[in-house]
C-alpha cells in the first residue's frame, strides 16, 4: 500500500495537478479571448501594481481595516505553500527518487507552520459556522474544500510526531496530499491559479481603463 501511494499515485497526482492547472488556465484564457474587452484592457504596469497591493499584507485599506483576518489569512497561505515545499522529509524524498534537493527549513519551524495552517483552517471553519454572511453562502462543498486543505497538515503533524499508527497515518497523509493536488485545478481551490489573473484584470481595468486604483 505504501509503495502504491508513494509511487504511481504520486505520478498520477502531479500529472493531474500540473496538466489540469495548465488546462484550466488555457480554458480561462481562451474563454477570455471571446470577450472583446479582456485582453485590450490588460496592462502590465497596473496588473503588477494591483498584485503588489494585495499580496503584501496591510498594503491596502481593507486589510488595514481587518487586522485579525489579514494576519491569519496571510500566515495561513504563506505556511500552506512554504511548509510542504521546504519540509526536510519531503526534500529527502525528492532526493531519494530524483537525486535533486534544495535547502530546507528547520523541522521545528515547519512544525509550527503546520500548526498555523491548522489554526487557519479552524478559523475559517469558525467563520463559516458563525458569520451570518459566510454561513449563508456556505454549503457542503465549502466544508469539503476545507477538509481537503486541512487533512494533509493534520496527518502530517501526527506522522511527524509519530503519535500513533505511524505507517497508517503516513499512508493517509500521502493520500490526502495527493487528493489536495488533484483538487486544486478542478475545485474552487483553483483560486490559487486564478487569483493572479482576476487581480491583474481588475487592477488593469481600474488603473489602465478607468484611471483609478483598486486598493
Amino acid at each position: 500500500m505504501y509503495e502504491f501511494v508513494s509511487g504511481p499515485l504520486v505520478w498520477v497526482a502531479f500529472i493531474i495537478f500540473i496538466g489540469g492547472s495548465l488546462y484550466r488556465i488555457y480554458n480561462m484564457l481562451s474563454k477570455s479571448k471571446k470577450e472583446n474587452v479582456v485582453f485590450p484592457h490588460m496592462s502590465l504596469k497596473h496588473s503588477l501594481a494591483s498584485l503588489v497591493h494585495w499580496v503584501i499584507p496591510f498594503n491596502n485599506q481593507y486589510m488595514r481595516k481587518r487586522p485579525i483576518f489579514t494576519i491569519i489569512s496571510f500566515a495561513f497561505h504563506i505556511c500552506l505553500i512554504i511548509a510542504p515545499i521546504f519540509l526536510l522529509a519531503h526534500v529527502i524524498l525528492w532526493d531519494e527518487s530524483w537525486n535533486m534537493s534544495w535547502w530546507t527549513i528547520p523541522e521545528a519551524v515547519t512544525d509550527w507552520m503546520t500548526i498555523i495552517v491548522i489554526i487557519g483552517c479552524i478559523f475559517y471553519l469558525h467563520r463559516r459556522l458563525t458569520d451570518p454572511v459566510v454561513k449563508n453562502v456556505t454549503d457542503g462543498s465549502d466544508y469539503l474544500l476545507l477538509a481537503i486543505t486541512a487533512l494533509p497538515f493534520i496527518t502530517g503533524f501526527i506522522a511527524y510526531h509519530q503519535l500513533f499508527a505511524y505507517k497508517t497515518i503516513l499512508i493517509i497523509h500521502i493520500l490526502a496530499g495527493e487528493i489536495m493536488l488533484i483538487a486544486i485545478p478542478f475545485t474552487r481551490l483553483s483560486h490559487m491559479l486564478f487569483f493572479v489573473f482576476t487581480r491583474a484584470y481588475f487592477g488593469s481595468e481600474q488603473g489602465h481603463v478607468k484611471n483609478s486604483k483598486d486598493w
Partner: protein
Amino acid sequence: MKPTIVKREPVVDEALDQCEARLTEEQIEKVVNEVIDKETGGRLWTYVNTCIHCGLCAEACHWFLSNDRDVSYAPVTKVKDTIWVLLEKKGKVDGAFIKRCSEIAHTECNLCRRCGMYCPFGIDIAYMLLVVRRICAKLGMVPLYLQDTVHSHAATMNQMWVKPDEWIDTLQWQEEEGQGFVPSARLPLEKEGADIMYSVIGPEPKFLAQLLGNITVIMKVAGLDWTMPATAGWDNSNMAMYSGDFEIMARVERLHHETAQRLKVKRIVMGECGHAFRGAEYDGPTWMGWMKPPIPIVHAISFYYDLIKSGKIKIAKKAKGPITVQDPCNVVRNGGLGDKLRYIMNAVCEDFVDVTPNNRYNYCCNAGGGVINVGPPWKKKRVQGNRIKAEQFKRTGAHTIVTPCHNCHSGIEDIVDFYKLGMHVKFFSDILIEAMEIPEHLKPKEE
C-alpha cells in the same frame, strides 16, 4: 446551499408582475443560455470558479451596512441568489425567480463597484449583476419606470421624452437667463468646427434648466469656442445601459458620438453626471467594439479643474460655511477624478469639509446604477437602504452638499429629506456661478 432568508415589504411593480405571468420556462431557459453562451466568457467563468465564498465583500456594500447587516443585501448573497442558480440550473428556473433576479439586480444594487475593491481576488461583482440585468432585460423583466426611460431613449433618443422643439426652446430660454449675468453670452447651436460640444442628460432641459444657463455664462467668461447640437444626440444619459438593453444603449451612445463627429468638434464636454460618463467613455464604446470614444470625453469635474487651474475662471468670492461633497462612483472610484474634485471644491469653498470614507472609498448615493429610475414604488427601500450615507453627511456638519452627478443629486436630496438633515444639495456649477469673477467688460452695464 440553503435559500437566503429575505424579508422585504411587498412592492407592487406592474411591469414585473405582468412579466412574471407572461414568461414561460422555455423562454427563460433559452434566453439565459443565450446570454451566458454568447455574451459572457472568461470573466464570468473565472469569477464564479474563483470565488471562495469568504463574504469579505459584504463590508463594502451600503445596502448591507444600512440595513443592519441584513445578509440578504450582501454582494455575495446577491450573486448567490441570481447568477449561481442560473448557472447551476442551466436556466431552468421559473418566472418568479427571474422577477426576484430583477429586484436584486435592478433595485438592490447600484453597480457602484465598491465590492470589487473589497474582494481579495478583485472579482467584479457588479459585472455579474449587470449580466443578470441583461438576462432580465432580454426577458422583458424590467421595473416599469426604468423601462419607460428606455422607451423614451428608443423613441426620442433622449431619456425624458423631450421633444425637438422643446429642446431648442429651452436652450434659447436659458441663453437669455445667462445673458442676465453676462449680456454678451451666447449658447451657440450647431456651430460646426467649434472646439467643444457640450452635452447634457435628459433631465437638464426637463427640470434643471438653470444648469444650461450656468454653462452659458461659464463658457463666455472662460472665452471658449463651444456649441450644442440642435438635433437628437444631445442627450448623453443612458438608462438602457442600466436596464440591460444594450442594443438601445449602443444606439444612444453611437448617436451621441456621431453628433460630435458631425459637428467636427475636438472634444465633448459633459455636464455633471456620473453614469453618462460611464456610458459614453466605457460601456458604449466597449459594447460597440470601438474600445475608446472616437472624440475625447471630458467630464465636468475635469473641465472645471482645467478652467480654474489655468486661471481661465477666477474665483472672486468663495462660498461661505462648511460645504461637503459627494464622490460619484462612476467618475471617482471608476473614473479617477477624486483629487480633481477636491481641488475645485477647495478653490470655490472657504470651508470645504471632506467626508469619511472619501474619494474612491466613498459610499454610493444609492440612486445611481438606475436604482432611482426604478421609480416611486421602490423609493422607500432605496432611501432606507442608505442610512450610512445620511450618517456620513451628518458627521460633516455641512450646510450644503455638492453633487457633481445628477443621480447623486436626486438621491441625496431624498436622503436629506427622509433623514431630516436640513442640508442644501447643489451642483458644482451652482456654487461656481456665484463664486467666480465676471470681468468688468462682460458685466451688464448699469443704466
